[in-house]
């Protein structure tokens, strides 16, 4: 708070957990249970068998419905992923091209049905154009990047509704 204005932390913010653990250790706390809507941080200390050599008895409970921890989510995905949708992510680093060549129609648009082998875009890296396949079934509900936008590895390109 002094130097580094930070956003409101989520349960997967390891530093928040660490600070809580420090507090627990310092003040002999045995339990902390914090909830905020669907998010929860629950920590319990002590009351374990002395043989337990695990890093620290930090019990992280969280609702099963939340996205997997994979470190706190960073740049890509840029927008909130919807639970039922499938994401088509960039498998490489480069420039996103929505159509085969200038003037052509886009490979896919919102509403288009895709199959696993449907080409959805091209990504250019070092003058080489890589055709990207959908690798899933469904209907495109969102095109997440602009034509000619630079995409990182893992950037979400499209969202697909698999149930249609």
């Amino acid at each position, binding site marked *: 708070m002094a130097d580094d204005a930070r956003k409101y932390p989520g349960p997967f913010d*390891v*530093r928040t957990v*660490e600070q809580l*653990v420090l507090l627990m250790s310092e003040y002999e706390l045995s339990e902390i249970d914090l909830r905020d809507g669907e998010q929860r941080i629950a920590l319990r200390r002590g009351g374990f068998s002395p043989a337990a050599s695990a*890093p*620290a008895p930090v019990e992280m409970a969280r609702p099963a419905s939340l996205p997997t921890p*994979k*470190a*706190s989510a*960073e*740049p*890509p995905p840029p927008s909130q992923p919807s639970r039922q949708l499938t994401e088509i992510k960039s498998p*490489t*680093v*480069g*420039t996103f091209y929505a159509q085969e060549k200038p003037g052509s129609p886009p490979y896919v648009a919102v509403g288009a049905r895709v199959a696993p082998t449907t080409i959805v875009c091209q990504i250019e*890296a*070092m003058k*080489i154009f890589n055709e990207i396949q959908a690798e899933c079934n469904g209907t495109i509900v969102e095109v997440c990047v602009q034509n000619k936008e*630079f995409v*990182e*590895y*893992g*950037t979400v390109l499209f969202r697909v509704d698999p149930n249609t």
Partner: protein
Amino acid sequence: MFQRILIANRGEIALRVIRACKEMGIESVAVYSEADRGAPYLDLADQKICIGPATASESYLKIPRLISAAEAADVQAIHPGYGFLSENAHFAEVCRDCKIEFIGPPPEAMQRLGNKNEARKLAKQAGVPVVPGSEGLIESDEDALRLAKEMDFPVLIKAAAGGGGRGMRVARDEASLLSGLVSARQEAESAFKDGSLYLEKYIEQPRHVEVQLLGDREGHIVHLWERDCSLQRRHQKLVEESPAPNLPDKVRKAMCDAAVRLAKTAGYYSAGTCEFLVDKNHKFYFIEVNARIQVEHPVTELVTGIDLIKAQIRIAAGEKLPFAQRDIVHRGCAIECRINAENPAINFRPSPGLITRWQPPGGPGVRLDSHAVAGYRVPPNYDSLVAKLLVYQPTRTEALACMRRALDEFVVEGIHTTIPIHRDIMRLAAFRDGLVDTTFIERTWQKKS
């Protein structure tokens, strides 16, 4: 000068380059794999780009992705760090083709020095002593006997296709040479389907001493004195220091001059290191050139006051060396301990994981280069170096005392590190007296545990 540089590396060396860029007013672009996502050092760069999954071959080693990121970020140069693509001449060529400056030596010099035979030839050409050897394959036992007598026992039998010690034998007399040839040939046949052998002089209990070089594109090359990296474990350096203890000044100067000659002969520029073995009689033999910045470069920075990363960047930008050889004065003593995330108690097994406490040492004479902080998770995917702890003091005795003090202050929890063995090393009489060679740990240490 460059406006923006991409750093094609990770961890402490990426942070080291970010720091140099910041101090030079250059923007830095960090790349990262998914295993390094969220690492705190990335936030110190001006921009960061995810280039692939944890697997290095799909991220830090993937040239098209690095170039693509470099082009998207519109950088003028790429710093390759050490390891990964740093000694890949092809990568340097691709950079050149893409009109991106590769912050390192020219690809031609890298190629020549990257080939062991070529490097050996260059060394001879430059009048730099090499380890005596058969200069080709052994054709018969008689041939081998004659050669062994010429170069004096003990000799080393090596498989031409060899690696990892297979097909390797030490022969101390004629009888062991003849039997060694047979068994080495068999081993090489079965391991590599190629039984051809060659001979080399076997240097017993050698010290590893290397010379730091710096050259500009106009052919001015200087040395920044030597580093002694004899304290190794399985060819992995643990401790580096400068000056090399107990090395006669004449030998030291001759070695440094030899390194400069070799670099000139190879058409080298940027930072580089010329590695030598030194035998008990202080005779030195060229081994190889490392055509990149090295892990232990801060040792040299401390004793010369020259920032090697900034020098590399300036050279790549076309600047001339701002000093001549006579301006480079070696002062005091610097020692570096490599702090790895390894468990020395279980045969140095890697110990990745969450660092729950990180209390680094400080105070006079201490430098710490590390990307680790409390709460950082050391990924299991890459090398285990988490910190380089360095001390700088007027004398070696004081440097040892300072290093012992600093190591005692260093608290790391959550992962195992090599800190405890460095504490032991810094209290060893043999190390204190500068009597350590590259086989020291294997000969004396492993027995203890």
